[in-house]
């Protein structure tokens, strides 16, 4: 009997070690990306840490279900879910979408006629705090798309996987998010 039980324990340890090794190669390399996404979805760093920790435990428990490709998108999907759980609990209003998300008749036209070069130069000098506030003010679907692309550097395919929308939607959300930011960051209207 003691032998049998010992063998079983050994087997369990081996499985656990395998999970840990996978966790180390699949999840941990993307911890910074996880943190950056959670930081912008929750809106603050302390809650981002909680969300990331919870997501990593979810990832550890589900590591066997990982199919071996697009590790970063897989991990960020889990972080996004954890962040949404947090939002539902703590910022339910943030998930109520007022805008018609995919409508594209956005500011674009009205800012299109300003002179190109000085405007771009002014955007380049925008204050970091102001940029942060402008991003924080974006509706969640725009914000996550923008952060996944411009902060995390994911391509449209991966963003589509993480957010569960078609690639065309990724591009249109990105366009709208960026236009809103440009409108906000633009120096005062004359």
């Amino acid at each position, binding site marked *: 009997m003691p032998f049998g039980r010992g063998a079983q324990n050994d087997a369990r340890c081996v499985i656990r070690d395998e999970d840990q090794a996978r966790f180390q190669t699949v999840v*941990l390399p993307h911890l910074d990306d996880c*943190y950056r996404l959670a930081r912008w979805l929750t809106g603050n760093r302390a809650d981002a840490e909680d969300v*990331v920790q919870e997501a990593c435990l979810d990832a550890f428990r589900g590591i066997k279900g990982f199919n071996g490709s697009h590790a970063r998108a897989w991990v960020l999907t889990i972080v996004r879910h954890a962040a949404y759980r947090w939002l539902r609990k703590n910022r339910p209003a943030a998930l109520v979408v007022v805008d018609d998300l995919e409508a594209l008749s956005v500011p674009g036209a009205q800012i299109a006629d300003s002179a*190109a070069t000085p405007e771009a130069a002014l955007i380049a000098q925008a204050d970091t705090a102001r940029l942060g506030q402008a991003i924080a003010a974006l509706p969640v679907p725009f914000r996550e798309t923008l952060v996944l692309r*411009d902060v995390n550097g994911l391509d449209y395919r991966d963003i589509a996987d993480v957010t569960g929308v078609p690639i065309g939607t990724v591009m*249109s959300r990105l366009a709208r998010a960026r236009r809103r930011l440009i409108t906000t960051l633009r120096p005062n209207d004359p």
Partner: protein
Amino acid sequence: MIAPAPRSDNSLLVHGYLDGELDPAHALELERAIAADPALAAERSRTQALRDLIHDRLASERAPAGLRTRIESAVGLRRERPRPSWSMLAAASVLVAVMASGTTWLTVREPQTDAAEMVVADHLRALMAPQPTDVSSSDRHTVKPWFNGRVPQAPKVVDLTREGYPLIGGRIDVVGRMPVPTLVYGHNQHLISLSAIPATSVNAPARRTIAGFNVLEWSDNAVRYWAVSDLGASDLDSFAKAFRAAEPDG
């Protein structure tokens, strides 16, 4: 790669273009459109500036080291004991500095060791511990009974919140091999340890400074009290006055 979109969506495709998501044929087509349309060119330079801005300012933020450590511990990747936190290290360095500077601090001058030095040592130890109390409560009806059975006589416990010294809790200190009840009070960000030792002799109130801490000693009803804090002497005096004036709990 993005599927062909209607030509009117060129301003949308600018984004796919800048993100390198257009196939070469569409990218070329869009470049021509940008060259021919100043509004489109403006959208491109604005968007490019924004992308660069976000990348420069926000893309390099790293996860805090503590988060990585906690996650590694949570999944069993760290089996060693957790490393001491910065605050503990800071407290330890303070202790080392105190030990290095006060040459007399650890030397036992007389066969009978100085109680004041011991209550200071207990106070220091409490500051370094995860929490300075064994029982944490602002309710004296919780704190006082906690001492029963732990020390021969539970101390007088009063709440001095109104006087600006809220009760934080209590703990057992050891002074001269004797378990001694110690109450912990707060004042702004500072802590006061108040140890109560049964005494036969009555001493006049006395004040001194040990290792940078103010120590105040007085006797009431056959109990000798020692208050230790990094508070200023006058604040500690006010505390003692408030404590002595407060009605013993009945």
